[in-house]
């Protein structure tokens, strides 16, 4: 059951990811992204990370993609403005190298098939809201705060670049 679920979600995730970069119409791209996010949420669920799965759907598939769609529509692009996805001269090389990368990672994973992985005792119940909250406001409080700074930086930066008038 779990294997079947994983297979379906993984396949959909890959299809979605490829669709995002190959679709010519940006709206389709965004919709493919939604597909990708949903399948990721499925994968989280299969790992018993319910909270993460829900957040994934609400924040990413919901809020963020909606924002994307708004921006795309506001830009009001005509079809002839849109670039066509095609491989340029370096394309074959890129594909080859990417396959090489995949092969490298695959070899790493292959060598571990059937081996047991060390378990982080803290990770047992990491999927629940409670354990996540304890971790975030306990040991990882600093990290949490740093994320706040990170988001603030992103906000300030985009506002500054977008709003400031210039010569």
């Amino acid at each position, binding site marked *: 059951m779990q294997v079947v679920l994983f297979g379906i979600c993984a396949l959909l995730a890959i299809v979605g990811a490829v669709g995002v970069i190959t679709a010519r119409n940006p709206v389709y791209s965004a919709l493919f992204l939604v597909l990708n996010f949903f399948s990721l949420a499925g994968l989280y669920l299969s790992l018993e990370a319910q909270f993460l799965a829900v957040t994934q759907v609400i924040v990413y598939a919901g809020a963020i993609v909606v924002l994307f769609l708004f921006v795309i529509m506001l830009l009001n692009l005509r079809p002839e*403005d849109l*670039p066509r996805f095609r491989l*340029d*001269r*370096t394309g074959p*090389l890129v594909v080859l*190298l990417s396959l090489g990368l995949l092969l490298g990672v695959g070899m*790493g994973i292959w060598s571990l098939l059937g081996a047991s992985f060390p378990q982080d005792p803290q990770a047992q119940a990491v999927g629940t809201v409670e354990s996540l909250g304890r971790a975030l406001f306990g040991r990882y409080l600093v990290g949490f705060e740093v994320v706040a700074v990170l988001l603030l930086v992103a906000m300030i930066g985009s506002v500054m670049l*977008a709003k400031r008038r210039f010569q």
Partner: protein
Amino acid sequence: MMPQWTPYLVGLPLLGFLLSGLLGLLWPRYRRWEIGIGVLAVSVVALAFLLALGLFVGLPQEELPLRVVLYQWIASGDFAAPIAFRLDTLSLWMTLIVTGVGALIHLYSIGYMRGDAGYWRYFAYLNLFIAAMLLLVLADNLLLLFLGWEGVGLCSYLLIGHWYADREKAFAARKAFVVNRIGDFAFLIGLLWLFREVGSLDLGVVLDRAGAIESTALGAIGMLLFLGATGKSAQIPLYVWLPDAMAGPTPVSALIHAATMVTAGVYLLARLSPLYVLSPGVLGLIALIGALTALLAATMALVQTDIKKVLAYSTISQLGLMFLGAGVGAFSAAIFHVFTHAFSKALLFLGAGSVIHALEGEQDIRRMGGLSRHMPLTYCTFLLGALALAGLPPLAGFFSKDMMLTAALGSGHEVLWFLGLVSSLLTTLYMGRLLVLVFHGAPRAPAVSRAHEAPAVMRLPLVGLAVGAVAAGWIGWPDLLGHGAWNWIGRWLSDSTADLEHGLSLGLEALSIALSVTVAVGGLWMAFRLWGRAGLEADHMLQRRLGGLYALWQSGYRVEAIYERLFVRPLLQGSAAPLRWSERYIAGGLIGLASRSAFFIGSGIRRLQTGLLSLYALVMLIGALGLLAWFLWRSL
């Protein structure tokens, strides 16, 4: 005199540099106050000389060597490099040469550089030059020595390029610097290796433990350090910078050729002589390189037409003799020759400077002649310098050259001894030629008749140096006379250098001396006869007689061209190729690169060259794959 004063030897010229430099930088009016600048610069070096003299007189020979620690420079883990000075007979003697001759050259510069826009700069660098050289000579730690070594290289760069607005001169300066860096690089590697073997770079420790180093490592270290010495001392294969280095003001040439810079290599060999005597193979190579350099440079000196270039090749040749001396284990004789050569070569350069000064910049000896009538003092001193350099007894050059040649014979290097003798003969020929073509005969240019003697501030150093050129050799009479009792310099220096003893029979020594006297007298006679009668015509005659050989000498054995083809061009092309590759995409992006797509930013549609971007990402990907492959390979 207290040995604690030693740091001031370096400190005084350094202070002069800082004062001149800072005042000149910050206070434009100071730059035109030539008297003040000159007096400051001369007095710090003169004070250093007096200080050295005080140490020389005040410290009994038995108390040497002394170690004066200023402070701890580096102390990290098991490695410590203090700023410490070593006072022994060798360093003290070198200090005397550097400051003494240096002070006279400073004095001369006051007159020579008058009216130059960079007057303050010139004197600041000159002081720094002396400071760096003194640091090199006095350092008790090889790392500190390297500091002086690099400093000397930098100062020569700055001074050779003094008239940097002239492209050719700036290029000469850069060439000197780059060639020196090649030697420095070998030197640094040698130092690091030595540190690895010995665990310290303190001279005392290094010299003590030299015997414990495994012989191949010792040989390699010796070779690397020797290569460094060939860079500074302008030996084969790194001599090419010195002839170009005359692009600098003439007193700078005098300083580089006589008192500082080029003597550093010889000093290094003598300093590390306990290390070198343990690897006879390296010593043999040093002797061979020295003899070859002496011979080849002397032939090139014979065909030069630029007064300063004759002297430059002559310096290379003389340095070759010093390396020959060091190579056969006569380190103290080599240093002795540094001493006598310093006087005669400084004298010759300053004399040449007076001539150039008088002829308003003319350096071509074909447009001189008959100057002896207009510049009697310059002529007299130049004559003494030339004869001393040619090795005419009882002038200074004879004694030291003879000491090295007999050592070469005594150590069984008959061939090298013969090469040395031949280059001595060539020395007399080109010195005679120079003397005759510049001062004798009829004037070959109108400017000669307007020539006049230089001001007193320039004449005084000439006289001082001439005295040295005559008498400096009298502290080291050959064994033949007095059985070594009159060889004061040998006894003084042998405390610090590890000379190889050679049992040369008195008969052979007498033969060697007789031969070199014959060569000196005969060569000079020949030169005066040849050029005295025919003047420039003699050059043409030689050219006809020698044909291809003469052309080969004129082209400097085509070494420059070969280096250009072997190293310079491949290096430039080699570094240009990958660059062109990467930059082509940037330049190409402007014209229209094949791989491109468009990006949209904001409302205005702007095209960005993202083809470039995919190239960058591609390179990153290759790198990432490389890393992965490596780690996988290591772990599988």
